[in-house]
């Protein structure tokens, strides 16, 4: 079980798609920094794949910082919850 920490905007590089193409069902994804813009990707090919991720989390502080809002169905977390998540999963990979 790997927790994937995504940091860059999926509109400017391919990290998110590259992560999604390799992810296992039990893995988790956390969107932080510019990766939170992924929530604006409704029109994008990778968006449905992202929404299929059963353990998708978005860092609330980074959303709020950017004026981006998450739909109710999206699980937003704070830093203490991010710390807890890194322990829930076996290891963390940053993209």
């Amino acid at each position: 079980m790997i927790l994937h920490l995504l940091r860059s905007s999926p509109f400017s590089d391919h990290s998110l798609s590259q992560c999604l193409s390799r992810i296992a069902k039990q893995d988790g994804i956390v969107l932080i920094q510019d990766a939170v813009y992924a929530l604006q990707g409704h029109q994008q090919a990778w968006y449905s794949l992202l929404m299929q991720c059963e353990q998708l989390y978005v860092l609330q502080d980074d959303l709020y910082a950017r004026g981006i809002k998450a739909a109710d169905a999206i699980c937003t977390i704070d830093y203490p919850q991010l710390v807890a998540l890194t322990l829930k999963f076996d290891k963390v990979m940053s993209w």
Partner: protein
Amino acid sequence: MQSKRIAIVNRTAPHGTSHGQEALDMAMVAGTFGQEVGLFFIDDGVFQLVKDQHPEAALRKNYSKTFAALEFYDIDTLLVCQQSLLSRGLTEADLCVPVEVLSSESLRSALAQFDHIVSF
């Protein structure tokens, strides 16, 4: 205490940025310290291994020669993503050292065997 295994994942191409060079520096030190190291090459990271590189022409250091010396650092796990090679017009024959080419799925299971993952 049991020594932790570290996966060093190369995701970027050489020379344009210093990521590959500093990833390799870390791998060699880890090897010197007797740490079990796995070097992964995915996405643009597969370009790190292309043979016949001449970075001197671009005033960059030719560290690609070091890949062949990794066995002296007890690093023999070089895992390359098959899909990344294919989509970049490369085959195993284009690479400078013998590697293990794995499907995305096998690569992920291989990655899961390591305790920690750092990426460059």
